[in-house]
């Protein structure tokens, strides 16, 4: 029984790891296609049908490039930086509830690697470690542009983590749990948190953009202003890891946004058409991935719509607007709970 459990969990871990990487790889393709379509272009269409092999071509290119480690850099930390970025990006996936358990031969197999009861805290903890990947990478390069880029990135990520955490507190007050599995289960039947926490959602998604270093908050690596930000000195697959970690992060943030505010694997009224629990479970995965893909698209859509913030505007928005707003949101939620005795 224990052996079966370990095998099942290992399969889940590998599966989610592979799915995460696959989606991240095809996010790079989707990003280029979406960017092209939003700009009235065709986008990559040479590698394979509709350019579908483009991510593989990019990966091969990254591997084939010359690997340069600067003489003046701290070599251990220089290599550690992208490793941390990639590791933390892949680690967050384990607490996301992909769907309700599948019952097979009388044994229930939960479609969640582990439902630790502090799921949200775990996500926040791992995401916070992600800052080290950028900071260490920028510092170890021993280059002033990398250092400045790393400073910008870490300052931005730390500032926005506060507002992100505060916006989650209101949600936690309402749901009464910080386990992601329970939060997802509570939202069945169209009882999505977005309807109770619209302000919190707005703050959360904006902070998620800032955490992923996506436009309009892509100051750490804005090509037009900096030499390349914290990964100026990086080349070959180490650069690839930084860029790739960003796309994995985007996938995970989309999954968390869907789980926290958009009902996760739940879809209203589906219970009327399908009653088989296993079928519902599989449909749940489909719905969750539909939501995730929408949010990944939304990330890209925003990227080509809103111009980048100036650095002081970014800090102004983070500290003077989002933090007071999220505190106001906590107070409003508290008053609501007290008033409606929910």
């Amino acid at each position, binding site marked *: 029984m224990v052996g079966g459990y370990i095998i099942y969990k290992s399969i889940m871990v590998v599966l989610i790891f592979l799915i995460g990487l696959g989606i991240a790889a095809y996010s790079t393709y989707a990003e280029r296609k979406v960017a092209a379509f939003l700009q009235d272009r065709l986008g990559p269409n040479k590698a394979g049908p509709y350019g579908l092999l483009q991510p593989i071509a990019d990966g091969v290119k990254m591997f084939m490039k010359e690997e340069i480690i600067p003489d003046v850099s701290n070599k251990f930390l220089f290599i550690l930086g992208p490793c941390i970025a990639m590791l933390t990006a892949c680690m967050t996936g384990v607490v996301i509830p992909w769907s309700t358990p599948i019952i097979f031969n009388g044994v229930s197999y939960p479609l969640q690697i582990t439902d630790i009861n502090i799921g949200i805290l775990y996500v926040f903890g791992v995401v916070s470690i992600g800052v080290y990947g950028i900071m260490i990478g920028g510092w170890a390069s021993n280059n002033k542009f990398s250092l400045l880029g790393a400073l910008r990135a870490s300052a931005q990520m730390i500032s926005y983590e506060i507002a992100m955490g505060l916006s989650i507190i209101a949600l936690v007050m309402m749901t009464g749990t910080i386990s992601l599995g329970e939060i997802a289960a509570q939202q069945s039947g169209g009882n999505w948190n977005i309807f109770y926490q619209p302000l919190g959602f*707005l703050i959360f998604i904006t902070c998620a953009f800032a955490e992923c270093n996506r436009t309009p908050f892509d100051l750490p690596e804005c090509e037009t202003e900096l030499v390349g930000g914290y990964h100026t000195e990086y080349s070959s697959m180490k650069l690839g890891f930084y860029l790739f970690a960003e796309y994995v992060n985007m996938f995970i943030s989309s999954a968390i946004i869907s789980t926290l505010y958009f009902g996760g694997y739940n879809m209203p009224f589906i219970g009327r058409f399908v009653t088989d629990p296993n079928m519902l479970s599989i449909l749940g995965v489909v719905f969750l991935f539909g939501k995730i893909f929408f949010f990944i698209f939304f990330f890209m859509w925003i990227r080509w*719509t809103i111009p980048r913030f100036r650095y002081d505007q970014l800090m102004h928005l983070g500290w003077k607007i989002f933090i007071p707003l999220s505190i106001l949101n906590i107070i409003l939620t508290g008053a609501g709970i007290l008033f409606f005795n929910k």
Partner: protein
Amino acid sequence: MLTNRSKVVVNKQMTFMERIYLPAVIGGLITTMKHFFRKKTTIDYPKEKREISENYRGQHVLKVDEKGAERCTACGLCAVSCPAEAITMTAAERKKGEENKYREEKYAAVYEINMLRCIFCGLCEEACPKEAIFLTDRLVPVSGNRDEMIYGKDKLTEKSFNQVDISKRQTPEVLAFKQQKQYQHNK
């Protein structure tokens, strides 16, 4: 003030709706989404090509007559008329036995057009009294090498068995123009 179009800057305070930016963001998202579904302005070039005009002015051709003899007599009018100074040539005298290669007693031993200088205006074609040079609807292929862009007779002269159709550039107006007395020697 000269154009009467100057605008006075108004530093008016933004209203609350403007300050929260959300309506503006949603407006922007709608604008970009409209572009998502719009017809693309670029094309998949080597597979599909843009429609070009019937009398397009592309790569030149040096014509030969129906017997396969070159029409050019190296008179130099095209080079003189060329505003970009892209054409150079060296004349030579026809020897005995070359009557089937060159139409008249004088011919161009070297005839070069620098495709990097050429502006494809068509003045060489207009100046030519022998109907020897025409612009065609073929595009000049790109090259990574400047020397390759200087086209000699090997690239410009058409083959007698594979003549380039230039009838689109000989419209009735052009032919009527060429019927004038001073062009009678061009028969």
